[in-house]
């Protein structure tokens, strides 16, 4: 979530607050007594993986004055076919954020006849998603996906479309994630880079290489970085740190746990700490222990499995703020809530 000041908010992706099971963004705005209907200017779905899409349709439905933005890949016939095929099936929920995106599309279809609602925006490299003219001026610009990335994704979507006699399975996440929407925020003299889940590819037309190549090296650098893809090495590109970020920027990421994959690993975190001392995690990548009110169920489950746990296991929040009127060199104020921690504490096991 980004608060631009003067009552303007932007929401990028969504996850659920574990206690209320409501979208975190709506939960937070309610705590601050901010009216989502009037204050949220845009809701952006950076990509359609489950862990980034949970509850985004609820956020968009409440944010009635917000525009919706997502990757331009959603305009392709292949994606639309997938969207419809995997929605509303009882035994086979769509997954990969497809159900949520379908719900957003239904809301957009409802709003299309009413001119009070802003038009949705298809994000692509160097396209401005939202801007504010009054001071401090704001520009929210997409840095990806490139045209080549959209074409590459289409090639991967095509085989997923339902065909006669093809086995019916749940739609899993597309990997690698080339159509993820990375954002550059400019608020007055302050700049922040939000990396979404964009990965680093060998092809110069895709991923972070395309973003770094398209970045004007004479432009001011970003003072903060939402580290892409949960700090995974597949999303690390030295050029981002060298050319797009200031020295010792703040950097923050979220954890990811699935099977044996736990991101960021301690080694990944150490690499990030080599680049900046101000690195934070919203929670450590630990699953929650499996428990059940029926002890017989608990015992049977442990006997029948090699491992069992709840995901996500931990939950926290990192809040990084600065007065927009301060000079760019002024320090940012960092606050940690819940299970949030510094990456240094995570690496040294002191959390």
């Amino acid at each position, binding site marked *: 979530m980004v608060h631009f000041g003067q009552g303007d908010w932007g929401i990028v992706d969504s996850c659920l607050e574990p206690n209320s099971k409501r979208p975190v963004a709506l939960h937070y705005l309610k705590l601050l007594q901010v009216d989502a209907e009037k204050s949220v200017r845009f809701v952006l779905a950076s990509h359609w993986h489950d862990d980034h899409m949970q509850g985004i349709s609820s956020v968009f439905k409440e944010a009635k004055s917000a525009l919706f933005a997502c990757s331009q890949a959603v305009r392709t016939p292949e994606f639309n076919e997938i969207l419809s095929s995997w929605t509303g099936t009882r035994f086979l929920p769509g997954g990969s954020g497809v159900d949520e995106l379908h719900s957003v599309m*239904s809301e957009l279809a409802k709003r299309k006849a009413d001119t009070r609602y802003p038009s949705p925006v298809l994000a692509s490299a160097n396209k401005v998603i939202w801007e504010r003219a009054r001071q401090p001026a704001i520009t929210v610009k997409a840095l990806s996906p490139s045209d080549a990335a959209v074409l590459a994704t289409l090639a991967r979507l095509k085989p997923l479309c339902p065909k006669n006699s093809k086995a019916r399975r749940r739609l899993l996440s597309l990997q690698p994630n080339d159509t993820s929407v990375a954002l550059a925020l400019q608020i007055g003299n302050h700049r922040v880079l939000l990396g979404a889940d964009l990965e680093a590819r060998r092809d110069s037309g895709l991923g972070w290489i395309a973003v770094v190549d398209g970045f004007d090296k004479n432009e001011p650098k970003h003072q903060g970085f939402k580290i892409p893809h949960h700090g995974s090495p597949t999303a690390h590109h030295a050029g981002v740190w060298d050319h797009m970020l200031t020295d010792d920027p703040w950097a923050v990421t979220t954890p990811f746990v699935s099977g044996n994959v736990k991101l960021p690993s301690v080694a990944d975190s150490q690499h990030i700490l080599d680049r900046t001392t101000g690195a934070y995690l919203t929670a450590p990548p630990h699953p929650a222990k499996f428990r059940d009110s029926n002890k017989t169920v608990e015992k049977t489950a442990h006997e029948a499995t090699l491992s069992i746990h709840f995901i996500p296991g931990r939950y926290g929040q990192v809040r990084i703020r600065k007065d927009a009127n301060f000079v760019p060199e002024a320090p940012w104020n960092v606050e940690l809530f819940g299970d949030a921690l510094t990456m240094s504490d995570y690496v040294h096991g002191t959390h």
Partner: protein
Amino acid sequence: MANIPEISTCGNQPRWINEFQNDQRPRGNAGTQVMLRSLFTLLIKEPVRRDGMGSEQESAVVSTAAPTETTDRITTSSRPRSVIPRAKRLNTLPKGRYILLKKYEGFVTSRGEKSFTARLSENASDYPVLEAEFDLEELSETDRSLAVDGAALVWTMGYRYEGNTRKRESLIYLRRLPPWKDAEAELAKKAADELTRDILWK
């Protein structure tokens, strides 16, 4: 003689039995309703005399007190005699009875050489969700080849009765869903076109 506490009666049966028989409201689960009706029919048909001497259809008074030596005695014919409705003994349970303790549904997220990982939940709205890694040997030989990414999965835990013994069991199986049909793909295309046709993207 001790004063026997009584619950109100109606005709030949306690009122609660009559009320149950007359209650035609839907109860949500037809199976449960049939089972309850069978149980109560059993109770009505098989009232037991307080001394356990057999059926007693004329009785109108049901004691709620614990049976004692005094109250167990059959009363004189001028006073309605006490009966306690009792279920039949459980040794007539059908073979293969199963008590479900938990049922999870989900899908396979990854498969290795000897194990696979699945994401599971009791209800679609559950959050956080369960993630479990199973040995492939937990699946039947015929199911192992079906455990691929995205395959729908069911996991139940419960007690199975065989005669008078019961055993605790965990059962994992993969759903054999019907394959896609061309007609569905066509419908999906049409639905997608209708949904997104007029959205004015910038």
